[in-house]
């Protein structure tokens, strides 16, 4: 139940994989989330996760992603955010074919955000020839010159340490991610149910990364440090038809606690929320829809859309009442399927930093 937003959120973006050069006909024909999952593996409860194998791709499922966001700052205290995303989508079921006949399409999104600028880039690749892919051991995910690579001494349980690289026309970054705590299985042992349609995904996260590295904007490099969050998710399930978009947050508290929550906006006006609170010692608390209140406070107009970029969030159950403000209200990902994704900070009952993603506006 908790991951219904996640699967849909990523799924929608993943579903629009080729919309950039395919146009509408293509998006319907093969972005494919509105179609049945026939021929692809179903997501069933009780799966036993095995690492490092599950860090690698699951081509029998239709969609999958490797998603890292980082909240960083430089020596003078200036804040930055980075995003690194690799999406995989199968355009046809069946065992993976060799060479160009391979059914996998890969898409990468990367961005850096500063208070005064937001830079992003998007790349596409076909599987089977080596332009993009993921290998579980040693861990290596790549598309073109972007990559996420496991470094020695590798810990499969922590999926760390990692080196993360991406570049666009006017930005680039190289980060080293380290984690001393193991990754977290979301939902019920990594099986994330979707409450309304019995749709589900396999889903785990590593919210505990520390990050150091260099990011370059307009050829000016800066050293940065901070925190990062990895999401891994795969599924074959279609998008729910009555969902218009979502507002999603990942939060790093100064106390070391982590919180993931989101709100699915449905066309019937019923917003459906969910979340997971992870304490520094690794305990996780599931949050239900009724536990969460999310209220937009400030709207920013971007490309003729009104985007709520400042939020009040309350989880009375956890004594949480905070106001989230964006580092840059114009963290717009003008990719083939455009969405808002950028670093935020929050204050109130708790303080900290995090990432906000909003789609469907």
């Amino acid at each position: 139940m908790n991951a219904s937003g996640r699967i849909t959120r990523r799924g929608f973006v993943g579903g629009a994989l080729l919309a950039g050069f395919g146009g509408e006909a293509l998006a319907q024909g093969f972005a494919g989330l509105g179609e049945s999952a026939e021929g692809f593996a179903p997501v069933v409860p009780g799966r036993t996760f095995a690492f490092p194998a599950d860090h690698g791709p699951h081509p029998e499922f239709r969609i999958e992603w490797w998603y890292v966001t980082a909240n960083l700052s430089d020596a003078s205290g200036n804040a930055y955010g980075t995003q690194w995303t690799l999406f995989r989508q199968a355009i046809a079921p069946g065992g993976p074919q060799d060479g160009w006949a391979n059914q996998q399409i890969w898409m990468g999104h990367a961005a850096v955000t500063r208070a005064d600028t937001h830079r992003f880039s998007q790349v596409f690749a076909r599987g089977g020839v080596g332009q993009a892919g993921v290998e579980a051991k040693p861990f290596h995910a790549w598309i073109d010159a972007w990559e996420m690579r496991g470094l020695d001494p590798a810990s499969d349980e922590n999926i760390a340490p990692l080196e993360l690289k991406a570049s666009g026309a006017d930005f680039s970054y190289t980060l080293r991610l380290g984690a001393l705590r193991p990754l977290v299985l979301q939902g019920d042992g990594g099986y994330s149910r979707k409450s309304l349609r019995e749709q589900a995904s396999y889903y785990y996260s590593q919210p505990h990364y520390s990050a150091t590295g260099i990011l370059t904007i307009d050829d000016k490099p800066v050293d940065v440090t901070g925190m990062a969050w990895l999401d891994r998710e795969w599924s074959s399930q279609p998008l729910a038809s009555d969902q218009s978009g979502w507002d999603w947050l990942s939060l790093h508290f100064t106390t070391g606690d982590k919180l993931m929550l989101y709100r699915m906006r449905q066309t019937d006006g019923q917003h459906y929320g969910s979340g997971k609170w992870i304490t520094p010692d690794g305990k996780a608390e599931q949050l239900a829809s009724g536990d969460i209140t999310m209220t937009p406070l400030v709207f920013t107009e971007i490309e003729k859309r009104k985007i709520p970029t400042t939020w009040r969030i309350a989880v009375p159950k956890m004594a949480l009442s905070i106001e989230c403000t964006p580092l840059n209200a114009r963290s717009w990902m003008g990719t083939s399927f455009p969405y808002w994704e950028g670093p935020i900070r929050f204050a109130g009952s708790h303080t900290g930093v995090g990432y906000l993603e909003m789609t469907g506006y």
Partner: protein
Amino acid sequence: MKRALWTLAVLLSHWRRHPMQLATLLIGLISATALWSGVQALNQQARISYDRAAATFGGTRTAMLVASSGVTFPQKLFVDLRRAGWPVSPVLEGRIQIEGRSLRLMGIEPVTLPAEVGNAPTIGKASLQSFMTPPGEMLVAPETLADLKLAEGARPEASGTLLPPLRIQPNLVPGVLVVDIGIAQSLLKMPDQLSRLLIGKAAGKRAPLENVTGDKLRLVEPDAETDLERLTNSFHLNLTAFGLLSFFVGLFIVNSAIGLAFEQRLPVLRTLRACGVSARMLNVVLVLELVTLALAAGLIGLVCGYFIAGALLPDVAASLRGLYGAQIPGQLTLKPQWWFAGIAISILGALAAAATSLTKALRLPLLATAQPFAWQQAQRRWLTYQSALALAAFAGAGGFLWFGDSLLSGFAVLAALMLGAALILPMVLEVALSIGQRYAQQPLGVWFWADSRQQLSGLSLALMALLLALAVNVGVSTMVESFSRTFLVWLDGRLAADVYVNAANDDQAHEIKSWLRERPEVEAILPGGRADTQLAGAPIEVLGLPDHATYRDNWPLLQSADNAWTKLRPGNAALVSEQLARRLQLSVGDRIDVPASGGNWTLDVVGIYADYGNPKGQIAVNFAALTRRFPEIPLTRMGLRVAPANIPALISALKEKFGLDDRNVADQATMKAESTRIFNRTFSVTAALNTFTLAVAGIALLTSLLTLANSRLPQLAPLWAIGITRRQLAVIELLKTMSVALITTIFALPLGLLVAWCLLAIVNVKAFGWRLPFHLFPLQLLWLTGVAMAAALAASALPVIRLARMQPASLIRIFANER
């Protein structure tokens, strides 16, 4: 304002009384605009097609990487470059045969295809998933589908392999089949091989090329001008030149019509001035009147131009396909600029043609009535001045000839030559008529010549038009005939085999060969093959010639080393086509490096041969060596030596046994007929424009004569008064016109031959890369002279008949008239 309107009404009333004059003026403007804009429409249509071709998945408009050596390179280099930050997209290109037709097969990778590369977005709409996943789709232009006589969704075979279903892609260049890269690799049997990498414009950090791929790949910068544009430049210059010529000839008509109207309206203008209309106002109204007429005529001209272009387009398309392999769709599409440009040129042309008359109107002395009888002095000054200009033009032509080395300078020589000839024409006529006058015995004879001279200033523009039209006609038809004669002789040598067979695939070719070997009437089987590669950045063909007497004895060589055919045998020597030799400045004894499948192939040039009508450079090598160096080429073509009597039986046996049709098997005579047909069609546009120009020149002459006829009554009336009958006067007038026309024609003949020489020795060499021998065709010259005289006769008929039937009262009135 009211005054202006009244003035306009007064001026316009003139046309109501002289509808013929109005018609002439409009005809002039319409024909000028029509021919000019028709030609422009054709050029524009062709350019759109070239752009379309250039934009097709990295034509010359996109920067790309190609193999430094060889034709293809391993796919791994693509992945390495992507991983190093290069925004590259792979392309594999080759040829396949469908239904006996050889087509270009392009494999593209739609996911990485840069958005800015031409038709990418439209490919995307054709459902990317079905395009990429087997069996995939084969995108094809509607024209090609029609040529193949196949329906959308059909799955033809190539070399025994079932091809992906055909899908129409309206924006695609005809003759090209587009499939997914993976499908192309399997169809062309080139697994993991690529022909080139298109470089997207996406900026970003990328490692230096050498660090990623070593010296295996070479960067080719994008070209602002496409190959096709470069190749076809000459053709379009040619068309433009014709359009311009027709335009100017049309303006001659306008000029004389306006001159006549002005002459006749002089009293009205004077009256208007005397009534208080200012010279300025008068001029404004005159310009307004002219612009209105030009606007109306321009619109009609544009519509006519559209139809002319539409009528000529199939021939233009055929020419461009035949000469350059350029594919032009048969449907005319016009941009709005074309309409505006057409109207503008009509108005500007009308204003230019009326400039003299308008200046006169501006300076019109209010009360002047005296006629300028000092015409002779004025004319002498004018003649001297014009002749000086003519000499300058000739000097210019010489300069362009000596210093110029481009197609444009070739045309500049032609233009300067024609301009000079046109300008010197009055002087030539003056001299010729003076000589006539000197030898004249009777007073009437003397008057005949002297009066002809006096008419020169009035007729000279029309005669210049006639001269230019004739000279161009002589020049172009001499060139076409020379070409035709050379081409036919060359074709005889080139098509030396008696029967040509093209099998559907290699297996069938094998079966056909074994079957032919059993047939006693087949004297020899000459296998043929052709590979495509690149030399010095441009595509070339490599032709395989078997070592056989048929070629040694018949293949026409322009230059050759000793024992060229023997030297060809080991596979390290090549014959080079004339075009390629000229472009790369190759001569016998040079050495070339040709990219082949396994690496570069070094060849000695042992001969140069004519290869008329081939847009691509070509080299010919030993057939066995070709198959060793390009093992992947289809070996489906062959020529057969058969005694003529046995040809029909053999062809029908071949058709029956192997299910071949006319496209796959043909005898020499059919091939020759087909080539000649294509050749003839190539020049049908030229012929049509030639005729148009001559017709326009005829109209120019007619209007000039009409103009003169009226103003010349004061000269003729005294002759009538002293006893020469109107009929005699008419005959004299006719003779006068015919004699100046004849002198002009005689002058046009050498000029035309000079034009022909320029076309053959300068323009053709630059445009096509071949030089043709110059032939003289006296009968044709005689015929053209006849046509010119007929045109002059037709043009003078109306004014002469009018004179013969003129009421004596009109002639008497001359003496009463103040003028």
